[in-house]
C-alpha cells in the first residue's frame, strides 16, 4: 500500500483550507485559512476552544462536511495528492481505508440496529473484498487488539449491550480495521470518564506506535496533548495561531492565546489560592469575527495594530508557525513584551 513512487515527508499537509457554511444571505467562515502538516507516523494535536473550527477541519479532510457547509478553497495533500481534486468514488476508497476517523460520542456513533461484528466487518467487505466469514474473523482479531475481553462473544452483541468505554474501543477497532495511514480522532476521550480516558489514551498510543500511522488528534485537553502528541496546532476562531512541536509548546508557548490556555490549567503540585486563571471573554462567533487579530479583544497585549489588521501566519526556519504581531517587525507595542508576565494568578 505504501509503495507509491510519490515522495512526501508529510502524510498530511493542509494548505490554506477554507470551509464555510452558507445561509441565505450570510457566509460563516468556520475554517478560515488553516494550514498544518503531519509528518509520517507522528501525532499532531489540534487544540482550541469549542467553536474554533477543529471538528470542521477534520471533517473537511474526509470531505464529510454536510450541507450547508462547503469547502471553498485550499489544498488537502494526503501522501502528496490533493484530496479536494478526487472524485466522490475516489474519496470513498480512502475513507475508512487509508484515512479513518473516530468520533467524540461513542454512545451515538455506532448504528444501534447492527451488531458490533457487522459494523467492523463492513470495512473489510468494502475495502478488502473479504467475504462475511473472513471479515468476521478479522473483526474478532481487531477486537482482541483493542483489548476487548472474549471478543468471540462481543462480536455478536449490539452497541446497547456495551459500556461507553467498550463502544469507544469498538470505534477504534473499526477505524483501525484496514490499517489506515492516517487516523483522525475527534475528541476520542471527551465523553468518557477519567479512568476510562486514561485506558483509551494508552491503547491509542500503543497502537499508534505499533502500527506507525499518522494521527490527527483533536482535543481541548492540554493534558492529553502533553501525553500523546509530537506536534501541536493551536486553533482560534477558525485559524491556526500557533504550530510547533509539543516540547516547545509546553516550554515556551509564544502566542498569548496559548499562554492563556496553559495558565488556565490548575497546577497539580500545589493548591491554588483564589480563582483559577481564565482567559477573559469568549470565542467570537464565526459570523462576527473581529477585523484585526481574532484574539485581540481578549488579548492582554493587544494594540491598535492588533485590533485593525489581521496578522499573517509566519513560518520560521524550523517550520514552526505563529500568527501574532508581537513577533513581527511591525510590532508597535512595548519592544520587550514579557508574554509570561501575568503568570501570577489573579487573586
Amino acid at each position: 500500500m505504501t509503495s507509491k513512487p510519490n515522495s512526501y515527508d508529510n502524510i498530511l499537509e493542509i494548505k490554506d483550507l477554507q470551509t464555510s457554511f452558507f445561509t441565505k444571505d450570510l457566509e460563516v467562515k468556520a475554517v478560515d485559512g488553516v494550514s498544518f502538516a503531519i509528518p509520517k507516523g507522528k501525532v499532531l494535536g489540534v487544540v482550541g476552544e469549542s467553536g474554533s473550527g477543529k471538528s470542521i477541519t477534520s471533517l473537511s479532510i474526509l470531505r464529510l462536511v454536510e450541507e450547508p457547509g462547503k469547502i471553498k478553497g485550499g489544498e488537502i495533500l494526503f501522501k502528496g495528492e490533493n484530496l479536494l481534486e478526487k472524485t466522490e468514488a475516489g474519496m470513498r476508497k480512502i475513507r475508512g481505508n487509508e484515512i479513518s476517523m473516530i468520533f467524540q460520542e461513542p454512545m451515538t456513533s455506532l448504528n444501534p440496529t447492527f451488531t458490533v461484528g457487522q459494523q467492523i466487518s463492513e470495512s473489510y467487505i468494502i475495502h478488502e473484498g473479504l467475504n462475511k466469514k473472513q471479515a468476521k474473523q478479522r473483526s474478532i482479531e481487531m477486537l482482541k487488539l483493542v483489548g476487548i475481553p472474549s471478543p468471540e462473544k462481543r462480536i455478536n452483541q449490539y452497541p446497547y449491550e456495551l459500556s461507553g468505554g467498550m463502544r469507544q474501543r469498538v470505534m477504534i477497532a473499526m477505524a483501525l480495521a484496514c490499517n489506515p495511514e492516517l487516523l483522525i480522532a475527534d475528541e476520542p476521550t471527551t465523553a468518557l470518564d477519567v479512568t476510562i480516558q486514561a485506558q483509551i489514551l494508552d491503547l491509542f498510543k500503543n497502537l499508534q506506535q505499533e502500527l506507525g500511522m499518522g494521527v490527527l488528534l483533536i482535543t481541548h485537553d492540554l493534558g492529553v496533548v502533553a501525553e500523546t502528541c509530537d506536534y501541536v496546532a493551536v486553533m482560534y476562531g477558525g485559524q491556526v495561531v500557533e504550530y510547533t512541536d509539543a516540547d516547545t509548546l509546553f516550554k515556551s508557548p509564544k502566542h498569548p492565546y496559548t499562554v492563556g490556555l496553559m495558565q488556565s490549567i490548575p497546577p497539580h503540585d500545589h493548591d491554588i489560592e483564589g480563582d483559577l486563571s481564565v482567559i477573559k471573554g469568549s470565542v467570537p462567533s464565526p459570523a462576527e469575527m473581529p477585523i484585526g487579530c481574532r484574539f485581540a479583544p481578549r488579548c492582554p497585549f493587544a494594540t491598535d495594530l492588533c485590533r485593525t489588521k489581521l496578522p499573517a501566519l509566519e513560518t520560521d526556519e524550523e517550520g514552526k508557525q505563529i500568527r501574532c504581531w508581537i513577533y513581527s517587525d511591525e510590532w508597535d507595542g512595548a519592544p520587550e513584551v514579557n508574554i509570561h508576565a501575568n503568570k501570577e494568578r489573579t487573586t
Partner: protein
Amino acid sequence: MFKFIIRRIIQTIPVLIGVSILVFSLMHLVPGDPAQIMAGESAPKEQVENIRERLGLNDPLPVQYFNYVSDAVQGDLGNSMRSGRDVTAEIGARFWVTVELAFYSTVVAVFIGLIAGVVSATKRYTFTDTAIMIIALFGLSMPNFWLGLMLIQWFAIGIDLPAWVPFISDTSWFSPSGWGSFKQIVLPVLTLGTGSAAIIARMTRSSMLDVIGQDYIRTARAKGVKERVVIYRHALKNALIPVVTVVGLQFGGLLGGAVLTETVFAVNGMGKLIIDSIQARDFPVVQGTILVVALLFVFVNLLVDIAYRYLNKRIDLD
C-alpha cells in the same frame, strides 16, 4: 425470541376478553328489546317470549356472556336472524375477501409510501420533496368513498378523451364492482391504500430525516460506505422502526376502512356484511363480524410487535 413470542401471545388474552365483553354488550346496549325487534313490532307477546327463551335472554347476564364465549371459542357464533344460516359460515365466505383487500392495499401503500418517503427525505427542500408532500397531503385529506367514486368515474365508466390524445380513446380500463379478477381488484385497492400510502410516506420522511442527522450515519460515511447503501441499509433500517408501527395500525385501520370501500365497489366482504347486517338489525352477524375483525386486529398487532423486535434489538420484554 421464542420466549418473547409466547409472552406476547399471553398478553393478548386480556385484550380478547375485553373485546368479547364489548361485543357481547352490543346486543344489550342497543335500545329496544332484541327479541321484540326480531319478532317484529306487531308480534304477539308469546312469540316474543319464545324467542327470548330460545336465545337465552332470560338468563342472568354473566351466564349469557359465559354461554356466548364458550360457544364462540368452539366456532359457534349463533345463527343469522335474516337468513338463519350459521354466522361462522356467513363470515367465512367473506373473510378472505376483506383480508385480501386490506392486505393488497397495505402492500401497495407500503411500497409507494416507503419510496416516496425516502426520496422526499434525501431530497429535502427540493421541488421533488415539496411535490411528493403536497400529493401526500391530498391523499391524506381525500375521503376514500369519494376517491372511490372518482376512480370509478374516470377509470371504470371511463372518460372519452379528445381525438388528439394518442393511443387512448377512452379510459374504462377497470371494473367498477365485485372482487376476484385483476380488473376488479385495482380500484378498491387504490381507494383503500391511498390514505395509508400518504401516512406512511410522511412518517418515513420525518423518520428518515431524523436518522440521517444521527452520528452513526456520519460514521458509516466515514467508513467509505456508498451513499445509496448508507441510505437504504444504515438509515432505513433505523427509520423503519416507527414506520412498522404505523403500518400495523394502518392494516388494522384498513380492515375497518374496508366497510366504506366495499360498499362503494359492491365487494362482498366483511365490511359490507356489517353494513347490511346493521341495516337488517341482524345482531348475531354484527357481533360475530366485529369479533372476527377485532381478533384479526390483535393478530396483526402481534406480528407488528415481532417485526418491531426484530428491527430494534433493544426492545426486550424478558
